[in-house]
């Protein structure tokens, strides 16, 4: 990993990326484990009608922030490939969050 010339800013970017990862993962959890069961058990589609677009927007923000994070730093190619693949698998955002936390800890201690 190449140490960035301004680690404070890079740490801020990693914090933002981690926050967006958690938001994306949580909205998917609510959609799959709360809204969808409500729809199928009680017949009320309102929960999925709300949570579907909310998760869609969270996913878009997540992919956008991932592109921004990768473009602005020197990530190893393997890390980039793993993060991009994880972005498109369910709950992969949580995997990315853990990887970003490790990178953040590494940067902070550098």
């Amino acid at each position, binding site marked *: 990993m190449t140490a960035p010339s301004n680690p404070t800013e890079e740490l801020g970017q990693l914090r933002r990326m981690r926050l967006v990862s958690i938001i994306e993962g949580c909205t998917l959890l609510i959609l799959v484990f709360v809204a969808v069961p409500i729809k199928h058990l009680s017949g009320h589609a309102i929960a999925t009608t709300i949570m579907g677009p909310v998760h869609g927007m969270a996913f878009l923000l997540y992919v956008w922030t991932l*592109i*921004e994070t990768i*473009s602005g730093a020197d990530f190893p190619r393997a890390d980039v490939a793993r993060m991009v693949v994880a972005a498109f698998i369910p709950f992969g955002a949580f995997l990315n969050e853990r990887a970003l936390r490790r990178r953040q800890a590494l940067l902070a201690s550098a």
Partner: protein
Amino acid sequence: MQVYLWLKAFHIAATTTWISGLVVAGLAVASRLACAGTQTAQDRSFLAAVRRWDRCVTLPAMLLAWALGIAMAMQAGWFSSPWLMIKLTIVGALSALNGVLSGTLRRLDRGADHTPAALLYAAPATILGIVMIAILVVTKPF
């Protein structure tokens, strides 16, 4: 007034703001590429201003454009229309370009010189994208 018209008005306002920010970011990156290696204090303050604008105005405008666009498409029942799928593909590409430009601006702000040469064409590509979107949205050819 119909909800649809309000959505449309704010969608157009958000899109105009987003695309103008994208063109400015594209031009800023292209100008840095054109004179790589020489970064004056004026260049740095200009890049910092473009970055602030990108973070505080362009990104929220993009998210608003997406949200309002999706709401309009749901209201009008357009999600099965091929023209909308093509438009969404172009919008996705412009959003990705915005992400790459934002990251590149952050990299340039740190004083880095390594920038993908293809970003020289970011501003013209943005204009081409928005022209194609305008044609698709107005004519709805298929």
